[in-house]
């Protein structure tokens, strides 16, 4: 598989997903849509990291009892999995804080559209 363009397809797809999220954050005028763009970017970064953990012909990082001397090439890298597990939970809690802020903005200004918010802030 190495040497062909297929070996880099994973990076292009996750990069494309990141660009979708980036464009959503930049172009969407609605704050909830910006938050959705941010979550898409987070997801793409998580998939990118999990792809770095992959090894050809390796299995899940769970060592059975009957394998006394596990070889590093036989199990995929557990480190990105542990890091991304925490990243997912942090992403959930940052989404919670962002939604709370959005709720407060809507309660105060009555709108979530960026252009209306800017014109109301200038008054």
């Amino acid at each position, binding site marked *: 598989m190495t040497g062909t363009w297929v070996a880099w397809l994973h990076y292009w797809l996750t990069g494309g997903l990141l660009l979708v999220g980036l464009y959503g954050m930049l172009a969407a005028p609605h704050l909830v849509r910006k938050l959705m763009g941010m979550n898409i970017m987070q997801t793409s970064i998580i998939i990118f990291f999990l792809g770095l953990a992959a090894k050809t012909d390796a299995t899940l990082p*769970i060592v059975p009892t009957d394998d006394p001397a596990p070889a590093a090439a036989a199990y995929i890298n557990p480190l990105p999995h542990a890091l991304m597990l*925490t990243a997912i*939970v942090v992403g*959930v*809690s940052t989404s*919670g804080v962002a939604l*709370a802020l959005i*709720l407060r903005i809507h*309660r105060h200004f009555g709108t979530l559209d960026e252009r209306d918010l800017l014109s109301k802030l200038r008054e």
Partner: protein
Amino acid sequence: MKQPFGSAVLEAAARLLAPFVLLFAAYVVSHGHSSPGGGFQGGVLFAAGLLLVKLTRGDPSQWEIGPRAALVLACSGVLLFAGIGLLPLAWGGSYLDYDAPPLFADPVAERVLGTVGIEVGVALAVAGIILLVFDALAGWGEPERSA
């Protein structure tokens, strides 16, 4: 949640599913060291099982963890984690060095115990925080309606 949006179908499904979701959460937390799973996943499952009932039945369900109890749950989870980390200091170990206390002869058994304790702490904290954030976003949104 003041108004539930449950129908007969949703309520029957939630009634059937919720106990199994909670049981599976306990399984995922307790087997986190020997199979896929762990504190984060189990805590999220536990919160999801409770939120399923809360969403379908609303306030009258009388079968939920309120915001005050959720806050206590989250605090106790973080304190359990930090407390397990502090315990080895009394026997001259470093922070989070589980095999310093002379509980068992086998240091690996002590590390398993410390790992499971930390997973439980993480699960409590995650479940409490998710219930708390849900309550904050869903229940307290409109100050005019809730006196």
